[in-house]
Each structure stands twice: as C-alpha cells, then as structure tokens.
C-alpha cells in the first residue's frame, strides 16, 4: 500500500501552521508534540502508521469551522477522525496532514420521543447514543461490533452496519439530518427531523463518503422503540451448504429474523476455546434471532426450527433463558478476539448474494489451501456480508504480503459473483487499489465529481477511497 509523497513545503511550514491553528482555537485543542501526535498515527488498521503534522480536537461546530477554514487557506490536507476504530485505514494520516478529531464533541443535544429522534454531537459513541434514549424505551439500531468505542462520526463516514441490519438497515437508513462543515469552513445543515429531502438527497451521498466531503459535527438519528423481547436459536449443520440452504428457506418462508449469523468450523473452534459458549463442534453454525412478545417469538422460532429440520441439522438449541441467550451471543461477539488469540489476522468485509454462499465458501477454502493461510469465516448470513479472517504472522513481512494477496483474491471473488468489496468497513486505504475491480473508469469519475463539488481542492482525506492513479490529477491541482 502506497501513500502519496508528503508535501515538503507544508512540513517546512509546520510551526507557522500550528501557530495559526493556536490563534483560532483554544490552547488545549491543538496538539503538535510528536510524543502526543503519535497516538494518532493509525486507526484499527494498525499495519499502516504515520504521525500527522498536528492534531486538532475542537469542542464545537464553530471551532471545527475555524480549523478547516484555516487549513483551507494554508492548503493543508485534513484527515477527519472519530475515535479511530476504522478497520480500513479511513483515519490514517499523512505526514503533511492535520488530523481533526471530533472525540471531544459528545453531547446529546435533543431527545424527542414524539418525533422519535435524537440529536447528538458526532464524537459520541454508538452505544452511548442508545444509552441516552434507553430510559425512554428506545434504541439506535445500527450496531457495529465496535459500538462500545466507535463514534457516530465514523459510522456516518463509513455508513456502518452491524448484526441487526437485515431488519433495521444500516446507518444511512437511520440518519435523518446532519450539520457539517465544508473544507472552506462553511457550515451547512442537511435533512432534519423530517423524512425526506427537499431537492437532491445530499445527505445520502455524504453518508459513506469516508470524510472526503466535509466534517459532520451533529447528527439527527432515528430512534426505535425497543422490542418486547428477543431470543436466538442455535442451529448446527454438517455442511456449509446445508446452512446456506436453511438461510434461504427461512427467508423464503416469510420470516424476517432480526439477525442470522454464520460461523464455520475454524471460527466455531476458536470461539469455543475462548468463550466456552457451548457450541457443538460442527462444519457450520447459525445463530438466528427473532423479536416480539413471548407468543410471537415462540411462533417464529417454531417455524424456523421446522425449516431447519428439513436440512438435517446436527443440533437445534433454542435459548431457554436470558443467560443462555447471552452465552450464545457471547461466542459470536468474541469471534474476532478469539481469532486474535490464535494469531494475527486480516479481517475482510466483502458482501455476496446470499445464494452464492456455498460456492464462495468452497472457493475460499481452495484459495486458503493454495496460499497456505488459514481462513475462518464468520458473517451476517441474512445479508451476505462476509468477514473471512485470514491468519498471518505479523513478524514476517512475507506472511503479511501473502495474507494480503489472498485477501485481494477473495474480494475479487466477491465482486465476480455479483457482490462488492466492502459491506460495512469502508474502502479507506485498504481496498482503495481494488476499486477498479468493481468500478469502471466512468463509475469512479462520477464519484470523484461529487468530491470536486464539495471539496474542489481535494484537501479532505484525499488519499483514500480512489486509486491514487485515478485521483492524482485532482489531488495535485
């Protein structure tokens, strides 16, 4: 992975730029001590690191506007950052950039249970949004695995999903309005507490634009009444094909579970060793969760179990208590941690049409053998979003390179069967150079036109999303 060569002129002017930032921001909002800026050298994609020129941590939309206006005037690239949990390198700095973190902007500005919205500053974490409305009986639906740590700013930047989006959708489906600052310091509001756009749906394209169109400082989020109850059933199979067919039949039968999670044998074994969730040792495991009151849950689980039994399951175990439900989910939720105890891994995020599941799993197994890297699969089966985990040895550069090459092959496979490179993590720097696999030059040109309008000088997070060769003329302009 390459990053553009930093602008030596900017680095030479570092002291002047920092002084100018200090002139428009409170003293403690500007960080330039190299010992402290190092904390911002990477995000969740720790394989790549680079400390920025400086870090600014504003406390208000006005301070964000002041910082951006100044960087715009000085021609300094800006890398927006939520809490730095991106798995795609979305918040990876360059040496000539200023990192703008919204982590100090965490306030809840408004809760309205009549209009069913919450308005928050975007440095607030995902889980803290749900926590703020919990007492009123509501929750915020998108639930990325990192929800304890990740900020709404990053959720909007990457259009984050989660385990429950088969029923509730992803961030873009739960975002009603936002306040954002353009690179030149202009503050705009898009949407609000109403349900659709007056003209072009600009908010729709801002969500998922990976911090390249503006810095979102406030968000109006849709909140939902908490369901009366929820309960999972664990279904084990002797083959991934049987599990895939079972998922298809459940959906065909008109049941819409709130989540359908899939794990393969390597993942099941790792989770069981780590979390002791009581998973059977089998080729494929489904966790299917439904919501409603007791009678509704029993009816839906009954239907699901009847369907499952047509596919010769090794085990069907309906949760009988809150403790058991928690235990079933504990295994799944600790999957990444469990794999981390076995070794270093790369987490992929491609999506495939659900019908391609058995074929893609077989192909991944063959690729895994060919490249000599173990791959464990855990994914959201209801929506086809896969998370193959490729094991490698971080102390061996050749091992990382091999794992990355295998990852790229798997993502190409996802695109070839009608899917995409990334379902919820974003492109960042990680999948930037694979974009041409999924998009034609005209497709990429159309996307880059949007950035031309919002950020004509390409100063916001410029080295992300688009292959460097495709964006070079614009970044150099």
């Amino acid at each position, binding site marked *: 992975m390459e990053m553009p060569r930093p602008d030596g002129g900017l680095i030479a002017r570092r002291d002047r730029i920092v002084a100018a930032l200090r002139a428009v921001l409170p003293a403690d909002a500007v960080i330039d001590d190299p010992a402290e800026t190092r904390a911002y050298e990477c995000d969740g994609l720790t394989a790549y690191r680079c400390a920025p020129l400086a870090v600014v941590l504003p406390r208000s939309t006005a301070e964000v506007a002041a910082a951006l206006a100044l960087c715009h005037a000085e021609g300094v690239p800006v890398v927006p950052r939520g809490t730095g949990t991106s798995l795609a390198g979305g918040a990876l700095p360059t040496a000539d950039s200023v990192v703008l973190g919204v982590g100090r902007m965490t306030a809840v500005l408004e809760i309205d*249970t*009549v*209009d*069913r919205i919450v308005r928050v500053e975007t440095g607030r974490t995902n889980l803290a949004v749900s926590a703020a409305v919990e007492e009123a009986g509501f929750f915020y639906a998108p639930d990325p695995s990192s929800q304890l740590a990740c900020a709404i700013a990053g959720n909007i930047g990457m*259009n984050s999903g989660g385990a429950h989006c088969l029923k509730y959708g992803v961030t*873009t*489906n739960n975002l009603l309005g936002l306040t954002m600052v353009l690179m030149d310091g202009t503050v*705009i*509001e898009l949407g*609000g*507490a*109403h*349900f*659709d*756009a*007056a*003209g*072009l*749906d600009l908010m*729709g*394209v801002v*969500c*998922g*634009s990976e911090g390249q169109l503006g810095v979102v400082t406030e968000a109006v989020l849709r909140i939902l*009444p908490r369901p009366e109850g929820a309960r999972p059933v664990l279904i084990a199979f002797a083959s991934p094909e049987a599990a895939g067919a079972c998922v298809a039949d459940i*959906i065909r*039968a008109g*049941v819409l579970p709130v989540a359908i999670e899939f794990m393969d044998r390597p993942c099941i074994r790792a989770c069981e060793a780590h979390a002791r969730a009581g998973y059977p040792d089998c080729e494929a495991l489904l966790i299917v969760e439904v919501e*409603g009151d007791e*009678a*509704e849950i029993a*009816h839906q689980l009954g239907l699901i179990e009847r369907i499952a039994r047509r596919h010769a399951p090794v085990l069907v175990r309906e949760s009988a208590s809150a403790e058991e439900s928690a235990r079933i989910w504990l295994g799944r939720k600790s999957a990444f941690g469990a794999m981390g105890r076995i070794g270093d891994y790369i987490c992929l995020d491609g*999506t495939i*049409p*659900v*019908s391609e599941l058995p074929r893609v799993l077989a192909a991944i197994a063959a690729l895994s053998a060919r490249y000599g890297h173990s791959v464990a699969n855990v994914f959201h089966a209801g*929506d*086809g979003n896969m998370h193959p985990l490729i094991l490698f040895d971080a102390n061996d550069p050749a091992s990382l390179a091999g794992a990355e090459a295998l990852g790229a092959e798997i993502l190409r496979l996802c695109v*070839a069967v*009608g899917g*995409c*490179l*990334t*379902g919820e*993590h*974003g*492109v960042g720097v990680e999948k930037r150079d694979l*974009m041409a696999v*999924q*998009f*034609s030059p*005209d*497709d*990429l*040109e*159309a*996307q880059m036109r*949007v*950035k031309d309008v919002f950020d004509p000088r390409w100063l916001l997070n410029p080295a992300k*999303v688009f292959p460097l060769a495709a964006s070079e003329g614009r970044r150099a302009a």
Partner: protein
Amino acid sequence: MPPDARAPGRFAAGRPASAGPDPGDPGSPAATPPPAAAAEAAGALCPASEVELAELVAAAAGPLRVIGGGTRGMAPAAGRTLTTAALAGVVLYEPAALTLVVRAGTPVGEVERRLAAEGQRLPFEPMDHRGLLGTRGTPTMGGVAAANVSGPRRILAGAARDAMLGVRFVDGNGRVIANGGRVMKNVTGYDLVRLVAGSRGGLGILTEIAFKVLPAPETQAVLRLAGLDDTRAVAAMAAALASPWEVSGAAHLPAGRDGGAVTLLRLEGFAGAVAGRAGRLAAALAGFGRAEVESDPARVAATWAAVRDVAAFHGREGDVWRLSVRPSAAAALVARAEAAGTLYDWGGGLVWLLMPEGTDLRARLGPVPGHATLVRAAAATRARLATLHPEPPAVAALAAGLRARFDPRAILGGGGS
C-alpha cells in the same frame, strides 16, 4: 442476457440457472410492452437498450423531456420527449435473497404482481399519482426511483431510497454509470444510489435499479380512532409509533366533507401476532377513545390504497401541496395553512394539502421544519412558485454544482420542475 455488453458481471452476476428465463426480457419481441410502441408512434424517442439511450443522449442537440410512464408530473415542460418504456423487464429476481433487479421502464404493476406470486412485495408501498394528477399512462419503476415515491409504510420499512441497492444510469454526457449493486450491505465508494433516488432525472436517466424486497405479511389489521382533532391525532399516532408493535401505517383524515375525523393505524405480520398487537395497541391508546379494529383484507387494503394515493383529493379543484415536516410541528402548520382539504400520513411527517389555486403556501406558513412541494398546479403557478422548496444558498450551490457536472449541457431539465 441484457443487450448492453457491460451489464453482466456488474449487477446481475451470479444469476443462478434456477432463476429461469425472464419473461420480461425485451430480447424477445413478443415481450415488448405496449406503452413503448404507443410512445414511439407518438414521436417520442424510445431507446430499446442502454447503449442506444447513451448514444441518443450523447447526440442530443437540445433539452430532453425524459419520462417513464409520464404519470408523476415531474418531467420538464419543454424538450424532445424520450421514454424509457422500452427499457423494460425483470433482470433478476431471487426471492430467497430478497433481491429484485429491474430495468427502469418496467411497469410497477408488473413488478407488484411478480412479487405477490412469491409472497413478497416492495417494502415502501409506492403511491400511484394518476388519480391525484389526472395523468394517464403506466407508472414505471424508474419513475418510482427517480421521485423516491414512498407510501404509508415508509415510517416502518423506509422510503424507496432505502430499498434501492444499486442503479445504472446514463448521465447528461451520455456516459453509463453504475453504482451500488445487488447486495444489501455495500459501502464500496460513494453512495450515488441515494443521490440519484429522488433526483427527478436531473442527474441522469435511470436504466436499471436493484431493490431489496420483503415478505408480504400473513395478515393486516387497522385500528380506527374517531373524532380526534389534529393535535390529538398526531399525539395518538406518535404514541402508536413509539410502541413496540411495529405500526406500519399512521394516517389521519380530519373532519370535513367526507365526514368526521378518523385516525388510522395499521398492523401487519403473522395472524396471531397481529391479533394480539391490535388488542394491546387499542388498550394502550384507550386515552384517545375506543379503537375499532378492522381486519377484513379487502377493506384494509382499500383503506391504505386511499391513503397512499390521496384519494380524498381526487377530482377536487385546487392546488395540491405536499409537506414533509417534523411530525410534532404538523398540526400547527396545518392550522396556519387554512386548506380546503388535509390528509396526514407518516404519523404527521407527511401532510397533503388542497389549497385554493395560486396560493403561495410557503409564504403563508413561514419557516417550515422540513419542506413544501407544489405537486399539482397550473403551469403559471408552478412557474411563479417553483415546485421544490428553496434551499439555503450554500446547499443550493452544492446541488447546482452536482447538476452542472452530471449534466453540463443542461439537457435533462435540472430535476426542478
């Protein structure tokens, strides 16, 4: 296979053999829908493939008046008519993946029939504008997407834009652009799907759209509350929507020429669940009066079709306005409007108003927490008042910048009429 060489592998790849032959494939002449032939006979451009459409747009010397079925009143008044009617057919339908890919000119009715045969439906319940606007023609899926047409179920299941997974379109330069795909979770690159949804054709001409579909419910029921004033009705709807019983429709028709006020709440799902939820919802809303429960399928369907299509205004004179507002602000806005007719949908988030001809509703209302669209009016009124609500200058500048880049020759009508 699609006639355009680039289509395979970019949207419908992985199509299983079990999907079977596509009866709507325009590759077979017998399947060419009649509206296309009629349009062609009337002198409209009627491209039969995406490639042909791209060539027509690239070669266009002046403005185009692009329509699907021409039923939604959003095409520019001037320009050479170009219809997508011949770009029709279901490209892919996988019920087990809840995925449908259609060409833009595919009639909405054909899609709804095809889905119903598999026990599924479009989640967003698109309105039919013909009764309200007095238009004729065949509504198309391209029109639904271009206008983000979303009916009562929008409050639970999302709008058309939320169900759109991918698009292919021809921009004002005649370039074919694909964005999104056919899978439910996809954050690869910028989301032009949402940008094009509701753009009223101003950024490009849709050729193909992938939708998420949902299972149709086993049962539906409606709770009716009688005699509530608007403020109480919005409060009742808000209470219902804040309950865990997944209310999929919340509408209110104030007292007027059709009788007393009635507030409608819809429940959908498995039979046992709907019966149980109806009882619990009625009990929870006891403070708003005694709720009457209607569960006859035909009557329930007719009730919501009337809400969806604003049947209360059909055949009545006057301008039609559509307010998209913060629900809690709706009743006060309606009081200021002094309309001849009013219908609340989306729990108050959507308000249809029938106004005396030529009324400047925006001036009468003052600041609106949302926006007001002029949906039906004489040409002179539309020219004077503009169809779409004015945007703040910085936002309008961004929108204008996007239009200028996607349609530099301004031949697509700007999506503003």
